């Protein structure tokens, strides 16, 4: 029993950890896909990821995962140790992604309880061949030993050490007393202290941590550092721990001297700390991306140089994963707490006349404050940034654009927009589909087609998320072909998807919406990625299932924009609590246009019994909730009640209610499945006093209303 349990939890851990690692891996790869090569920290990171997955998959005896990760680890081990030039970066990126896909696939199998039985041979062979080629190339260049190549790479970094006018250059030599213990560790702590201020730091011997013998070298020859920094001499001296040091030589150098010293260091087996290289990449990125502020590449590089060190370390946000059920339970409990609080604070026992309550009031005010805050916190806990979803999209653009041989850049805006976790799960697939569509159908096949239209040869897809008025807008915009209205119309007619009406009878939006009809696909051939005609209608269905919608804008030859408009959260809506008869109802605030009191004279009665309301010259359908739902003790005189004008996707309806109770953030709960679905109700919720209110579903009301007429 016990053993079984252990394997289970180990497997869970393995899946979770590996999943996280792969995500991180993909992040690194995609961020650097346009760079010329990975820098040292990336190589280390990828190496580490592969090593970890290899280790844990080995323990659990998933041999194919172990083999593949081991191979890739080999490749990166070689890269790390030998720093070969001319690494075919794109190919390397592809290889890493292939491995990442393979492992992800196997992990999925494990998650579904299957055996991971993917065939790794092809991949391993590919990697072998790739590694062989890497090594071979070095040999061709006449450099026999990889080690000999070691300092070639660092030198490259030095072409552009970003030296500002106010940078100072120092040569620092530390000689420790001959009886100093662990002088290499001391030397390391000195370098560590200097990294804080360093723009660039070189030291020799370079293997102070990994090689214990270096301690002896330091004792014999001293420890030498080259430092480029903005800090003054005094500041730097203060940073170095001078205990145990016999002598510290501190020379300020000019830029020229520094260059020479660097060359010397190079010959002396020097190795840089990544700072210089990282900075270089940063500069490059900045230049490249300047025209697009908010671009993700720029964002991650915003940290100042002083923070470079921290940045090099993997971004460890302190996050724990919590079972969603537990979160829901916590949310329920907090809801209960709020109710219990109301029961205590409004207890009838307190209403005894002449009771001195001022202290009680103070204390209860404090209590209310805390519970409100608690509620806010739990609600915010359910919110997650879209970062991960967007990262997946980057991957898709990368894959598909390369497969289709299209040159496309992806701009990502607002990836930190937060939405409810449930919603994230629901939008990933639709969004993926839209992005694929944009790459496949949106952007032109040939760059010439673009340039003749005066567009840049490189296609551009913009993925943007923003939060507006309680809704999240996620748009996928391309600057490609755009939609051709005549073609869409003709196709829809040919396939018999629409009524036989003239094209002029449809609005642009209606025509664009044809692509969301089941069985509609505008592309003649089916490609690997899209075009089976099962796509867009599924997208729309998925989005509708979470209460969102899809908006399509397009200008032919200029591009299209697909926007998903989804509620911020499924679980919490901002609602107005109203009363009809004895029952409270909740109406989502966003769908309320206005509250009006109307006179009997603005009612129009049809002979069939239908009623309309005329407001400012416009005629709206009118629903009396009390009659619709057979509610007793309610107001039926329009002049005594309140008319609420509701809007949903452009159509409006007026509803008669008795009175308004309050505005409240409400937690949406489904109506138990035992009760069959009632049209016009989308769920229920608990009010502050513990009673239950039903949530009106405007869309349902409208449909129901339409059916009756």
């Amino acid at each position, binding site marked *: 029993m016990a053993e079984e349990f252990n394997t289970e939890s180990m497997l869970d851990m393995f899946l979770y950890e590996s999943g996280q690692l792969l995500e991180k891996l993909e992040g690194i790869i995609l961020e650097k896909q346009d760079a010329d090569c990975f820098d040292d920290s990336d190589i280390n990171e990828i190496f580490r990821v592969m090593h970890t997955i290899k280790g844990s998959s080995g323990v659990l005896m998933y041999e194919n995962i172990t083999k593949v990760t081991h191979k890739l680890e080999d490749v990166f081990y070689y890269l790390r140790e030998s720093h070969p030039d001319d690494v075919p970066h794109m190919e390397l990126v592809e290889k890493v992604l292939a491995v990442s896909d393979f492992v992800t696939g196997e992990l999925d199998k494990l998650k579904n309880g299957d055996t991971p039985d993917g065939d790794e041979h092809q991949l391993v062979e590919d990697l072998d061949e790739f590694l062989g080629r890497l090594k071979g190339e070095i040999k061709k260049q006449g450099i026999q030993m990889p080690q000999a190549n070691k300092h070639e790479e660092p030198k490259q970094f030095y072409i552009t050490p970003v030296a500002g006018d106010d940078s100072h250059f120092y040569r620092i030599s530390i000689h420790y007393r001959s009886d100093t213990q662990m002088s290499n560790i001391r030397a390391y702590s000195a370098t560590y202290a200097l990294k804080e201020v360093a723009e660039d730091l070189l030291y020799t011997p370079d293997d102070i941590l990994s090689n214990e013998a270096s301690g002896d070298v330091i004792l014999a020859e001293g420890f030498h550092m080259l430092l480029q920094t903005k800090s003054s001499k005094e500041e730097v001296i203060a940073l170095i721990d001078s205990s145990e040091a016999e002598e510290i030589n501190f020379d300020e150098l000019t830029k020229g001297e520094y260059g020479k010293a660097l060359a010397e260091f190079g010959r002396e087996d020097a190795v840089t700390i990544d700072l210089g290289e990282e900075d270089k990449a940063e500069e490059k990125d900045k230049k490249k991306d300047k025209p697009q502020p908010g671009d993700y590449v720029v964002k991650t590089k915003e940290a100042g140089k002083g923070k470079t060190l921290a940045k090099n370390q993997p971004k460890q946000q302190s996050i724990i994963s919590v079972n969603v059920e537990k979160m829901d339970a916590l949310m*329920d409990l907090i809801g209960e707490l709020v109710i219990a609080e109301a029961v205590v604070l409004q207890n009838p026992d307190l209403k005894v006349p002449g009771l001195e309550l001022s202290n009680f009031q103070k204390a209860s005010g404090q209590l209310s404050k805390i519970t409100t805050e608690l509620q806010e916190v739990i609600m915010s806990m359910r919110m997650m940034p879209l970062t991960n979803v967007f990262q997946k999209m980057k991957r898709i653009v990368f894959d598909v654009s390369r497969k289709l041989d299209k040159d496309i850049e992806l701009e990502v805006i607002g990836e930190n927009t937060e939405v409810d976790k449930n919603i994230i799960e629901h939008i990933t697939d639709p969004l993926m589909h839209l992005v694929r569509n944009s790459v496949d159908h949106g952007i032109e096949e040939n760059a010439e087609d673009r340039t003749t239209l005066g567009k840049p040869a490189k296609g551009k897809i913009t993925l943007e998320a923003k939060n507006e008025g309680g809704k999240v807008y996620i748009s996928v915009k391309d600057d490609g072909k755009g939609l051709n209205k005549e073609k869409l119309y003709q196709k829809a007619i040919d396939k018999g998807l629409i009524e036989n009406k003239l094209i002029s009878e449809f609005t642009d939006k209606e025509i664009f919406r044809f692509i969301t009809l089941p069985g509609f696909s505008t592309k003649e051939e089916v490609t690997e990625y899209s075009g089976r005609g099962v796509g867009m209608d599924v997208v729309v269905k998925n989005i509708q299932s979470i209460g969102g919608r899809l908006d399509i804008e397009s200008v032919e030859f200029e591009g299209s924009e697909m926007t998903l408009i989804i509620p911020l959260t499924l679980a919490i809506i901002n609602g107005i609590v109203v009363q009809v008869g004895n*029952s409270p109802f909740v109406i989502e605030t966003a769908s309320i246009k206005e509250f009006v009191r109307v006179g009997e004279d603005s009612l129009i009665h049809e002979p069939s019994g239908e009623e309309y309301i005329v407001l400012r010259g416009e005629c709206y359908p009118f629903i009396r909730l009390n009659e619709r739902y057979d509610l007793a003790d309610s107001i039926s005189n329009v002049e005594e009640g309140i008319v609420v004008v509701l809007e949903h996707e452009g159509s409006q309806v007026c509803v008669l209610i008795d009175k308004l109770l309050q505005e409240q953030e409400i937690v949406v709960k489904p*109506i138990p499945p*035992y009760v069959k679905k009632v049209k016009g109700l989308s769920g229920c919720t608990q009010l502050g006093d*513990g009673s239950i209110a039903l949530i009106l579903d405007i869309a349902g009301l409208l449909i129901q209303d339409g059916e009756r007429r």
Partner: protein
Amino acid sequence: MAEELKNEEMEELLEEEDSQKGKFMTFQTGKEFFGISISYVNEIIAMQPIAAIPEVDDYIKGLINLRGKIIPVIDVRVRFKMEPSEYTDRTCIIVIDVNSTMIGLIVEKIAEVDTIADDSIVPPPSLGRKEHEHNKYVYGLARTGDAVKLLLDPEKLIRQEEIEAVMEDIRKED
């Protein structure tokens, strides 16, 4: 060692089952007594304010809030086609859990927990009254003392509901 442990565990389990076996929560509705196997009963709560749901069968009285959980309640009297009665202080809600579906049953009066031996349960007589509504949920009759108790099968009760709901949907779509 392990074997012994297992046996012990088994015995414990059996014992637990035993303690519930043959025990029935009985309640009175009108003149008749009903019984539900106690293993289905979660708890018994006092009458609560009920939020009515429009457009549902009249025996579904609405929803109650059971410590944050929203569960539907049905009036047993109305369910069995009896005249509804006023709710009084004695009126209770028996919360039952049938395959993770929680439902509250409004009953007039809780009687007691009875132990009914298997052999004193007889199937309801079927005198060609198959169309008779409430027979579907009554799987047995038990005689204890001088009263006859109708034993309810909650699983059937719930499944029946679901079937009815589906049927209704189909009818509507037609």
